[in-house]
């Protein structure tokens, strides 16, 4: 009531005397605030919102905003000037209010007023010592009492400062060592302010805060020039050259020593442990804003003068350790988490779907933050952060879990999911190198362990590790794919041409399963009809895809044979779907996935695909040595493709030469081909298909189909050419598949009522009925038959799509 009365008086005074200038108004409100504190009774329980303080602060703020609108040419108006020159020490007063928290609620008010000043004005003159010092002091004093009720306001102010730094990177200097005072100064209130606002500070005995252990001699007050010298001469921002006369001080620092601090980041980091998710989110945003600045020296500040990367990764490790050990592995797979949305979701009480959900969500959202940060931040920070991720999380924490058989299943599932969701190239690189080893190491224990984990008799572990390998390939880098898959294949050591009169090849094609089938006459008729039907279908597909089946060139004949080999691998009698109605679906799918791989591997230094245009084809027909075909095709097509010249760099060329000379030697001495531990494991599991659970087989075949899609000439022929001449002992995909087919052909007809079982099993599997897993009635043998049957269609489709692609390339 009294205050309203004074406003009325004020209005009356305005009528009698000429209206006050803006500065006079500003001074009036300032004096009202000081008056309040001069007469303040510290025992008063009155909340700050019940006083006139918010009103006066708001008016002062509004006056600054208003005067700025009228200012021209980057000058500062008289109110702001009063602050910069500290004739009105508004910001110091705010700092004292925040420290004293008198009247109750003053701290939040001081923080929001400071934030509003920075957000509403275009030129808050933060480079002036009289602005940044009180702000620093306010932040540090608030930070002294962690988990305070004003965390939100504190982090808002910090974030606002980050925003200012983002726009004027030179301002980062005010948070670095020479401009940050020592701790005791920062924690005290200047004497003149204590006289103006005589309230005792709430913070008396500063708690130990390791963030500010910098001991420096007190500096004279100085302004920070945002014109930086040194490395980035090009940078020049003059927009806030304020009206004050203080001598500018330039930061000459480009090298930092151990004692240097980057206060802004340090403060942000301290809020990452808040219990309030919104506060954490704001701190995360602040870190991202500062880290994404393009300036090299700010990036160096973040990596060398702050523990940012280490703190962020340690937090990830801590969240990882919180995940309960008995989480169900399959629950991990379906998580989809975006860091930025989690803070809000966690407010939802119904937000717990299964055991460990909250912990997993917390972990994966933090991982998503790390990943996003790495994508957005300066390359120096990304490199440092990804290295720290590998050392402090993967090697330091996660690695043990893979070898520890009690936890290997869940650890593998989580790590596979991690690799699946990350997207930042730096992170994928470090992750992959951790898995497969850096450079050319012979034996990499972790990779070895993973391969062995696939071969244990714990199918759950096999399954999760296969999933992991699926992701390792999907997220493969050139290096990791080489290490895991291509290492042995690039030598083409599997290739062993034989004399043309060798009938072995034909024997193999007229496969035992077919031969045996023919002995049963009735079945043989059906089989023959089936083969005709399949052939018709292939012709259909070929013509449908724009390939004229009437043109019987070598290529089309051979692709026909390749497709045939896969589609006729299993005899009709035991097929679950002899009609083969879904080839189109497989072809469509293969198209899409092949295009993905062409894009994903476009920067890899793999031999160009012209070399293998007819590997699916020519090697059986005439057992010619491929090198000649290479030369022929290289000569024929390379000049036409100037955009692929990169691929012809000398390194490549020599690789090809090596390849050729190797071919020559392998023709003379038939050394045993070692397919490497990974393929050994894959073939071993494949051969064991009839004894393995459906899910294992599903993921196993999925890995192989992924590999078959890779546009690498050697891998292509090794996996997709059933007619490839090899030494007898050399294992290939097709040989292994034949073995499995042989076994199924023998064993399945022995089952009672096998046709019905096959039919039912197929129906169940296709229905994707979740209750099926618990149904005790399923037949593993028949399930593996159906997987194999579908897998053959898939391989045929992949071979076809790749062939079609090369044709298109050469048209």
């Amino acid at each position, binding site marked *: 009531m009294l205050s309203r009365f004074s406003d009325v008086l004020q209005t009356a005074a305005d009528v009698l005397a000429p209206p006050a200038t803006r500065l006079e108004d500003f001074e009036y409100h300032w004096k009202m605030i000081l008056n309040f504190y001069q007469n303040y009774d510290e025992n008063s329980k009155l909340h700050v919102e019940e006083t006139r303080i918010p009103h006066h602060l708001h008016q002062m703020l509004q006056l600054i905003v208003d005067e700025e609108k009228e200012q021209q040419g980057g000058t500062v108006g008289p109110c702001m000037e009063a602050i910069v020159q500290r004739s009105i020490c508004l910001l110091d007063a705010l700092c004292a209010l925040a420290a004293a928290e008198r009247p109750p609620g003053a701290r939040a008010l001081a923080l929001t007023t400071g934030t509003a000043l920075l957000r509403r004005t275009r030129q808050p003159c933060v480079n002036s010592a009289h602005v940044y010092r009180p702000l620093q002091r306010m932040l540090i004093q608030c930070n002294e009492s962690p988990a305070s009720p004003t965390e939100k306001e504190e982090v808002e102010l910090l974030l606002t400062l980050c925003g200012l730094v983002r726009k004027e990177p030179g301002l980062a200097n005010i948070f670095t060592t020479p401009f940050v005072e020592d701790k005791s100064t920062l924690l005290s209130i200047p004497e003149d302010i204590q006289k103006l606002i005589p309230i005792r500070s709430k913070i008396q005995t500063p708690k130990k805060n390791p963030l500010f252990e910098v001991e420096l001699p007190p500096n004279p007050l100085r302004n920070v020039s945002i014109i930086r010298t040194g490395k980035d001469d090009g940078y020049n921002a003059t927009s806030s050259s304020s009206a004050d006369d203080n001598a500018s001080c330039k930061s000459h620092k480009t090298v930092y020593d151990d004692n240097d601090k980057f206060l802004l980041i340090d403060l942000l980091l301290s809020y990452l442990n808040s219990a309030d998710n919104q506060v954490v989110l704001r701190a995360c945003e602040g870190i*991202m804003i500062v880290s994404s600045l393009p300036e090299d020296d700010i990036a160096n500040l973040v990596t060398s003068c702050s523990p940012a990367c280490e703190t962020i990764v340690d937090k990830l490790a801590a969240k990882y350790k919180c995940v309960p050990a008995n989480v169900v592995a399959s629950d991990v797979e379906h998580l*989809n988490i975006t860091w930025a*949305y989690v803070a809000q979701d966690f407010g939802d009480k119904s937000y717990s779907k299964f055991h460990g959900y909250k912990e997993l969500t917390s972990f994966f959202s933090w991982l998503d933050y790390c990943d996003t940060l790495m994508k957005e931040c300066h390359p120096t920070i990304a490199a440092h952060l990804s290295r720290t991720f590998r050392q402090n999380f993967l090697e330091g924490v996660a690695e043990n879990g893979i070898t520890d058989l009690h936890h290997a299943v869940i650890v593998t599932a989580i790590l596979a999911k991690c690799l699946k969701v990350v997207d930042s190239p730096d992170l994928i690189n470090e992750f992959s190198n951790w898995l497969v080893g850096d450079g050319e190491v012979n034996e990499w224990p972790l990779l070895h362990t993973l391969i062995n984990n696939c071969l244990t008799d714990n199918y759950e572990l096999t399954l999760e590790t296969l999933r992991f390998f699926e992701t390792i390939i999907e997220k493969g880098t050139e290096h990791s794919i080489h290490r895991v898959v291509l290492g042995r294949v690039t030598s083409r050591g599997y290739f062993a041409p034989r004399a043309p009169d060798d009938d072995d090849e034909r024997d193999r094609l007229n496969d035992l399963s077919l031969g045996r089938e023919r002995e049963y006459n009735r079945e043989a008729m059906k089989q023959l009809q089936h083969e005709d039907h399949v052939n018709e279908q292939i012709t259909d597909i070929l013509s449908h895809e724009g390939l004229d089946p009437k043109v019987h060139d070598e290529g089309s004949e051979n692709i026909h044979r390749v497709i045939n080999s896969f589609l006729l691998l299993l005899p009709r009698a035991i097929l679950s779907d002899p009609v083969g109605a*879904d080839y189109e679906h497989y072809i469509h799918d293969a198209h899409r996935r092949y295009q993905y791989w062409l894009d994903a591997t476009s920067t890899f230094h793999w031999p160009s695909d012209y070399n293998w245009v007819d590997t699916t084809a020519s090697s059986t027909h005439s057992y010619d040595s491929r090198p000649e075909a290479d030369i022929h095709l290289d000569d024929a097509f390379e000049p036409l493709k100037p955009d692929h010249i990169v691929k012809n760099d000398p390194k490549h060329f020599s690789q090809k030469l090596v390849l050729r000379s190797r071919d020559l030697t392998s023709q003379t001495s038939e050394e045993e081909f070692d397919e490497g531990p990974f393929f050994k494991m894959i073939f071993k599991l494949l051969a064991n298909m009839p004894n393995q659970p459906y899910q294992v087989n599903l993921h196993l075949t999925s890995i192989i*189909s992924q590999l078959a899609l890779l546009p690498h000439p050697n891998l292509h022929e090794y996996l997709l050419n059933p007619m490839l001449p090899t030494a007898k002992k050399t294992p290939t995909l097709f040989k292994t598949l034949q073995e499995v087919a042989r076994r199924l052909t023998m064993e399945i007809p022995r089952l009672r009522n096998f046709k019905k079982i096959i039919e039912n099993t197929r129906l169940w599997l296709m229905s*994707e009925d979740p209750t099926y897993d618990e149904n005790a009635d399923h037949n593993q043998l028949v399930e593996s038959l159906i997987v194999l049957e579908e897998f053959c269609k*898939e391989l045929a489709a992949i071979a076809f799509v790749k062939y079609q692609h090369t044709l298109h390339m050469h048209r």
Partner: protein
Amino acid sequence: MAYAYLFKYIIIGDTGVGKSCLLLQFTDKRFQPVHDLTIGVEFGARMITIDGKQIKLQIWDTAGQEAFRSITRSYYRGAAGALLVYDITRRDTFNHLTTWLEDARQHSNSNMVIMLIGNKSDLESRREVKKEEGEAFAREHGLVFMETSAKTAANVEEAFINTAKEIYEKIQEGVFDINNEANGIKIGPQHSTAGGASGAGGAGAGGAAGGGCC
């Protein structure tokens, strides 16, 4: 309060076009002429009713300034709808729409519903962008278009609710896999797994062996 669905929205567009004001008008039904610059992202929520169903809208109001784009990008992923806002009194904000759209399409899921909003329709005298231009842009890029005024509240409700309706229709059509939260849609506690199943099971016959897709 119980809801059938929860939709996540983002508001994007140049700085100063009135994104925060639109949100404030929609959530609080008031207009605030002086508004603090948005840094990072602000949040608001409101319940609406579509087809007799309670739908909770969670809305993230993003910073328009280029400097904060790194943060904004994090929100594209996982949003079901976006309001792309320009200011009819500032031609440049209209000219930047293509960049915004590219950014949104690149970082969001392909089903995200985008609504184009020409804001400040109350300032007819200062208009620089004709309504027809907005309509043409929306047509060309397959967006829904509307002119609004955060000040007078004209069309503000409609903008948010029409976006929600479009998302709702997409759910009915099975376009959105509602079980995948990356789509920005969550099923509420009162609504079990009914509906939308058609979206998840459509993998076809190849599902048996074709498992791993990339």
